[in-house]
């Protein structure tokens, strides 16, 4: 049971990492990056390192994701305004 979960987790990690790098649309890449951060936090928890998992969820997925989304919004505004 847990090995199946781990395999699925590893596969989704690789898939979201690949998607975040190769997605043609920036918004899709950012959302995949946030998903990757959350899955990574889950992976740290599975590796019984909940401290790193907490930090990854808060800083890696949360704050960095918000920064990237904000940057994407600013880029889009700059592209449409002038």
């Amino acid at each position: 049971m847990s090995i199946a979960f781990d395999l699925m987790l590893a596969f989704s990690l690789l898939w979201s990492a690949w998607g975040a790098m190769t997605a043609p649309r920036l918004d899709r890449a950012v959302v995949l990056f946030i998903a990757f951060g959350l899955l990574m936090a889950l992976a740290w928890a599975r590796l019984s390192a909940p401290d790193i998992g907490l930090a990854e969820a808060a800083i890696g997925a949360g704050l960095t994701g918000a920064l990237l989304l904000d940057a994407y919004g600013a880029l889009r505004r700059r592209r449409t305004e002038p």
Partner: protein
Amino acid sequence: MKRVAVVIAAAAFAVALVGAMLEIGPAAIDLRGLVMQHLAESGVGHPVTAVLLNFRGYDTLLEIAVLLLALLVILAVIGDSRAAPPRAAHPVLQTLARLATPPMVVVAVYLLWAGAFRPGGAFQAGALLASAAVLLHLVGLLPAWNPPGSRLRIGLAAGFAVFLSIAAALLPQGALLKYPVETAGMLILLIESSLTISLGLILAGLFLVLSREDGSS
């Protein structure tokens, strides 16, 4: 032809990496045992917190210094540019943000307190505080920091200053950040509390200071 060569080279590199991983012998020092053995002297009950703030305290001291330096550089680069007032988001979003912020602050304080005996600690608590500030900023309730005022500056520097002054006060004992056993718990709590406030402000500052630029466009 070129692509085949690249694939073969990458595969060979991967095999070499796996081989190197398999060759790694057992660790020369049993760090886990050492930490567990001295946990009682550290003043906290959680091994990760004990390592971060007691046994390897100078790592954390330098980390907060690096974060503070990053924010100072951003402030120096941006200079005196002024931001437009924040755009107000939809009232539903604003209400949700208002409702979400108090529990986030409570959870941050809990994480700070829990760090002494279970996963948690200053960095996670600070990141949560910063997320609350970012949330309030994104819905237009918290204005961007047009050059931060003196109270904000004190808050930004407080964590590093408290950490550094405790380190300096303990220096006569012979080693950097070697706490006396009986006061270690209290000193760590003091350092972690100031670190949480400063980290929250610094991480939020990376967002709130940088976002001034797009507000003016």
